[in-house]
């Protein structure tokens, strides 16, 4: 393999040289990246740059924090506003009969009787008495009574039309409110119930219930009426809550 005897030793020498070279090469490369072996000017420049960047970042953090706080505040306000509006809308929906409701109340049942005629006026009277006794929602034969509900006699005066639909016996009037207050309010002496019972001998049944479910009425079809500008928004805000 080694034709001349110089080749072996010279190869060993070159091998060692290569080894030393690569070691020094790597050390030098590591030193270039090491801050300990940078010149003072370079270090000062690096330090200055980092300081500037540091203060810029601190400034940025403060700006962003302020922004975050502002956004949170406005978000909270919006949330509160939305919640208030939701509550308002729920109350209005209950008041206008646009949402099904349930709660304690009174059930008045008028069974069919042959002797005496019960007119549409009597139903209106009962409903009015119930409203007067602070009823919050009323239905007649499962139809919700709203501001647009009408009670009329049919042509032959034999039946009652509610919103144009014929009512049939037994008439069931359900009202949500405080049951005892409703009963007390409706059965005052010389009130409509008193007359119906004692004068016309109609066998009314009045029952207090812990839980009554009332369906929702169909939405009113408003074409011609518009809120008066400027006053529409003020009223609910001024009165706070709708009164039942």
């Amino acid at each position, binding site marked *: 393999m*080694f034709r001349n*005897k*110089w*080749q*072996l*030793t*010279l*190869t*060993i*020498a*070159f*091998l*060692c*040289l*290569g*080894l*030393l*070279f*690569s*070691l*020094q*090469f*790597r*050390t*030098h490369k*590591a*030193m270039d990246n*090491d801050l*300990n*072996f940078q010149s003072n000017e370079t270090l000062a420049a690096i330090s200055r740059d980092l300081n500037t960047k540091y203060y810029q970042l601190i400034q940025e953090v403060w700006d962003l924090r302020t922004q975050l706080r502002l956004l949170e505040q406005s978000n909270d306000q919006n949330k509160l506003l939305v919640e208030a509006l939701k509550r308002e809308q729920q109350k209005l929906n209950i008041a206008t009969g646009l949402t099904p409701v349930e709660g304690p109340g009174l059930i008045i049942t008028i069974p069919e009787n042959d002797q005496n005629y019960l007119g549409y006026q009597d139903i209106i009277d009962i409903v009015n008495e119930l409203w007067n006794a602070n009823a919050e929602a009323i239905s007649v034969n499962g139809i919700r009574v709203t501001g647009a509900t009408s009670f009329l006699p049919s042509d032959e005066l034999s039946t009652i039309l509610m919103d144009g639909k014929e009512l049939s016996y037994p008439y069931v009037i359900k009202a949500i409110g405080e049951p005892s207050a409703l009963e007390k309010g409706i059965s005052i002496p010389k009130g409509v119930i008193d007359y119906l019972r004692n004068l016309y001998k109609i066998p009314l049944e009045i029952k207090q219930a812990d839980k009554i479910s009332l369906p929702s009425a169909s939405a009113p079809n408003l074409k011609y009426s518009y809120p008066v500008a400027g006053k529409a928004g003020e009223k609910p805000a001024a009165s706070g809550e709708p009164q039942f």
Partner: protein
Amino acid sequence: MWLPFLGLLLGFLIGQTLTFTVPANFAPYFSVAILATLDSTLGGVTAVMKEKYDAAILMTGFFINSTVSAFLVLLGDWIGVDLYYVAVFVFGVRIFQNIAIIRRELVSKYLSNNIKNSQSTTHEVQ
């Protein structure tokens, strides 16, 4: 003929694969030692060219020169004399001289027959 250069390449690759690195404090001494070994090996190549090669001289020059030069630089640091630049200068000059001799030998051997071997000496640098 190419075996020594193969050895150089092999040594470099071995050094690259090793995870060991020279501590940064020893880097100046190490670089002087490298210059000494480079000088010794180039001297060996020159001797081969001139057919005056002696393995003992190369090996002793290689190891003793490198350690002594590194130690001298260390000594200079101890006594406050910056021998580092002296070592770099001396070895640098010698390396260039050796390279020049090798070049002249190669030229005379392979390119031109006009220049006689006897005309080149260690002190001729062109």
